[in-house]
């Protein structure tokens, strides 16, 4: 599937140890030919997760198209190959082994989905292949001093647990809440956010009223009734796209009329459009954000929209775009021979900017993904669905102070 | 269940006492009693819906009778009240049946169907079977041989390895018969074995029933509407109607019994049977 032209002898181990070695002693890493840099990912692009996987990959491809259009990296085009793993760990594992051992790609960009990522994290570390951006928020990715074999893992996306903490921090810091309702879905997103929320609530000594709903549920009425009865003063909607509209609509239907905060995944015009009629005149829906569309970032957004026709407003496409951006920023910094080590050094060299705001620092082995988030709110007056930024990117500490 | 009296079963293999069962308001079998002697061919006749099949189902424990007792002298000569046994235990005592509507396994070969009749005669455990221990292998071979011999006596050994599905009705009837023979029963219950057989086949069947009863030393309880067969093979006959006893006797006595003629035989057929 890929052309193995010159200088492609380095094997899976990534044996070029010393970064101090003179340039001409270095060999180009696998997956890099005179004309191409081959990268890959496996993601669920069919079945029930297609609505996430398809736009995500479209975002990655769009960004590479932009880069290639601008002349590529050191004159090489970035070639992106992809296999549909159907969210199945076996298939994801098989795909990864094929990428690294058969096709000998240079890096994995946008490794996707909790089950596949968790099942292959060890394999990745063993291979030593750089893996930039993980489309999942599992805790295993977090590392504050990655060294040696763990260095190659570069998470970017916010971790749901962090987000759960931020939500409670917002509720208390920005809205003065003391009794918070949490409606969470029984999936990794919901449960991780709950974990974060509980941790933070304990720290801040506020009361939580917790209700679980099934991911993808159509009837969440009993959970909402419980929340209503408890007379909370703020609600956390710890659920991703499919379920959050159900929760918000039920809150409106039962006139709970307390403000709601939810995860960055939902900060998309589509979701806003889906619920704006129901909440109008009743309560506000806030969302964490790790991207900002205001001011100077508007340009980045326009550029994104230009390349992702059909997915202009899709958050998952946006995250794919970001994934590719982080990967490319690292590449751009290497001048001369690209090996796995020179590449990883480049990523760690200094913080990398997110095109939509904020930055991530991989320096000194820090692998923590996005730590700062902003706050936006659904605009009641726009029936087409719109989020407007209320507060800029802030860390937990700055929210609480 | 506590048996307060041990019936006298000298010379008998089966004794039915005051058997009754009702479905809703309908008394399908009503205070029925009869007994079957060892090695005799006993006929049970009666109009459609008289309760014959229901009586069979009570004897073989497919139905639980409302009242009455069913005693059976098992292989070891011990008197058993069948009501104290589960359906699947009946065959071990030495009582086996066929079905009014053939009940065979279409996807198995004829010989395998016959071997099912020998199910309770195997000693090998699952473990023996899973690992094909010599014990299991030998036993399987022995039983297969026996089944083959039975098929031979019925003249269908050439089909032993054919599947049951798609076989003509007459063959199916024979396979059912063979399956009941392999367990060396003391009493075989046959429910309409001649249904669907043509004249010649019915004659053959009648010969076979007599022979089997002699050779295997077992009694046969037969339900059949084909009077030529019944009159030909039965030593004694019991006629019932609306679940109740009607008449009992030798074929000749039954044929001449007015009640039986009115309720069941009809005049013309009686003539036919005499032809």
């Amino acid at each position, binding site marked *: 599937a890929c052309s193995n032209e010159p200088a492609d002898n380095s094997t899976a181990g990534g044996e070029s140890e010393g970064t101090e070695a003179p340039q001409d002693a270095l060999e180009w890493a696998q997956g890099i030919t005179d004309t191409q840099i081959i990268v890959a990912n496996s993601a669920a692009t069919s079945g029930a997760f297609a609505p996430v996987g398809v736009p995500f990959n479209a975002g990655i491809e769009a960004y590479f198209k932009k880069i290639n259009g601008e002349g590529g990296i050191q004159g090489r085009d970035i070639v992106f190959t992809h296999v549909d793993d159907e969210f199945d760990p076996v298939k994801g594992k098989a795909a990864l082994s094929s990428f690294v051992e058969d096709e000998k790609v240079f890096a994995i960009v946008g490794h996707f989905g909790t089950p596949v990522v968790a099942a292959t994290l060890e394999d990745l570390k063993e291979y030593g292949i750089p893996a930039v951006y993980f489309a999942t928020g599992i805790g295993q990715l977090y590392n504050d001093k990655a060294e040696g074999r763990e260095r190659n893992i570069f998470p970017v996306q916010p971790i749901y647990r962090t987000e759960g903490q931020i939500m409670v921090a917002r509720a208390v810091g920005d809205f003065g809440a003391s009794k918070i309702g949490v409606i969470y879905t029984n999936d990794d997103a919901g449960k991780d956010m709950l974990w974060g929320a509980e941790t933070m609530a304990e720290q801040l000594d506020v009361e939580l009223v917790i209700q679980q709903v099934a991911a993808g549920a*159509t*009837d969440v*009425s009993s*959970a909402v009734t419980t929340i209503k009865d408890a007379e909370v003063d703020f609600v956390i909607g710890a659920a991703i796209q*499919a379920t959050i509209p*159900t929760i918000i609509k039920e809150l409106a239907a039962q006139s709970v009329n307390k403000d709601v905060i939810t995860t960055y995944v939902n900060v998309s015009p589509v979701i806003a459009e889906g619920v704006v009629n129901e909440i109008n005149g009743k309560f506000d829906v806030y969302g964490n954000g790790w991207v900002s569309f205001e001011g100077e970032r508007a340009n980045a957004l326009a550029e994104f929209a230009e390349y992702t026709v059909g997915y202009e407003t*899709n958050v998952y496409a946006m995250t794919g775009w970001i994934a590719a951006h982080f990967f490319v920023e690292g590449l751009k910094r290497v001048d001369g021979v690209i090996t796995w080590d020179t590449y990883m050094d480049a990523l760690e060299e200094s913080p990398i900017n997110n095109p939509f705001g904020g930055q991530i620092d991989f320096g000194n082995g820090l692998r923590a993904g996005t730590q700062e988030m902003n706050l936006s709110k659904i605009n009641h007056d726009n029936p087409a669905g719109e989020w407007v930024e209320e507060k800029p990117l802030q860390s937990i500490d700055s929210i609480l102070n | 269940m506590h048996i307060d009296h041990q019936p006298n079963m000298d010379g008998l293999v089966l004794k039915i006492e005051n058997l009754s069962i009702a479905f809703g308001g309908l008394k399908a079998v009503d205070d029925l009693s009869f007994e079957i002697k060892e090695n005799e061919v006993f006929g049970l006749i009666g109009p459609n819906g008289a309760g014959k099949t229901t009586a069979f189902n009570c004897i073989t424990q497919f139905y639980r009778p409302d009242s009455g007792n069913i005693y059976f002298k098992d292989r070891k000569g011990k008197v058993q009240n069948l009501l104290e046994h589960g359906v699947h235990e009946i065959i071990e005592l030495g009582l086996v049946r066929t079905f009014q509507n053939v009940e065979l396994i279409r996807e198995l070969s004829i010989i395998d169907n016959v071997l099912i009749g020998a199910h309770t005669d195997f000693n090998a455990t699952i473990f023996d079977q899973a690992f094909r221990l010599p014990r299991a292998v030998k036993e399987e071979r022995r039983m297969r041989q026996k089944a083959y011999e039975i098929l031979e006596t019925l003249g269908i050994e050439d089909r032993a390895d054919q599947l049951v599905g798609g076989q003509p009705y007459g063959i199916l009837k024979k396979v059912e018969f063979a399956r009941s023979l392999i367990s060396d029963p003391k009493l075989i219950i046959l429910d309409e074995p001649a249904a669907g057989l043509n004249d010649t086949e019915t004659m053959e069947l009648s010969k076979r029933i007599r022979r089997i009863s002699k050779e295997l030393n077992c009694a046969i309880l037969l339900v059949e509407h084909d009077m030529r067969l019944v009159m030909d093979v039965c030593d004694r006959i019991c006629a019932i109607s609306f679940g109740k006893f009607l008449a009992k006797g030798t074929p000749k006595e039954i044929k001449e019994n007015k009640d039986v003629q009115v309720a069941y035989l009809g005049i013309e057929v009686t003539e036919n049977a005499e032809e």
Partner: protein
Amino acid sequence: MSTFLQVVFRSLETGSIYALAALGIIIVFRTSFITNFSQGVVAMFNTFVVTYLFRTMGLPLWLAIFGGIISAILVGFLIDIVIIRHTKKVSPVAKQIITLGMIMIVLGITPLLFGVDPLRLPRLIEDGNLTLLGADISYNGLFNIVFGIAVMVTLFYILQKTKVGLAVRATASNEHTAKLMGVPTKTVTLGAWAVAGVLGVLSGVMAAPMTSVTLNLMDEIQINALIAVVLGGFQTFYGPVLGAYIIGIGRNLLLYYGSSVWGGQILYILILVFLVFRPHGLIGKKIIKKV
């Protein structure tokens, strides 16, 4: 009291959705002898059609729903003609697997046709609440309940009292012999798939405004409808409807008064235990096979 009523009212609405879906499953089961695992995804597909007509084509909602009904009928016909008719030699279990294949096809095609974004479908009656004994019920919810019941009553009447119903039940009982009696079984089966499709899209259109139109729209409804059918029994058409309402209400009561985490599972276990004592559901009875 009012909270209790609140939970019940809201569950009635969900119950109606389950009931429509369950009816779709049972009608196919009784005519084609297929446990149709694809009822939900086909309904999801047709709900996407409604959403497409409404949002992209700009049709009024009622007209879009009408379009969805037409699409449901066409898809039903298509399934019967292209697939089900050719399964004469296929065993009932294998037919279930055919519906698994259909799930894969629909799940694969839908995002290609309608995109991957969750879409919004509004309620038929946007506003208004009725307050009854201290509990709220929206006019739309009320409409759903009444409409659902009306559809079901009509279906019952047709199935139990008319010749068409006799034809359907005869086809269900023994297709070959029904043909011998002059029952146009092919038309019956064709009709059953179409009706199942329509029941599906109706349940989808009722469910969609509570959530959003996504590939998973009907997942939960499908499982609960299947369980409703088993709880009610496969032998009647009203048993599953009863089962659907019991599940709708029972689930929410258990979630509310019991545990929001385990309520659903407790219900499953209760149903399981119930089945041990009534193996053929609330209404069903064992068909005795006389030997």
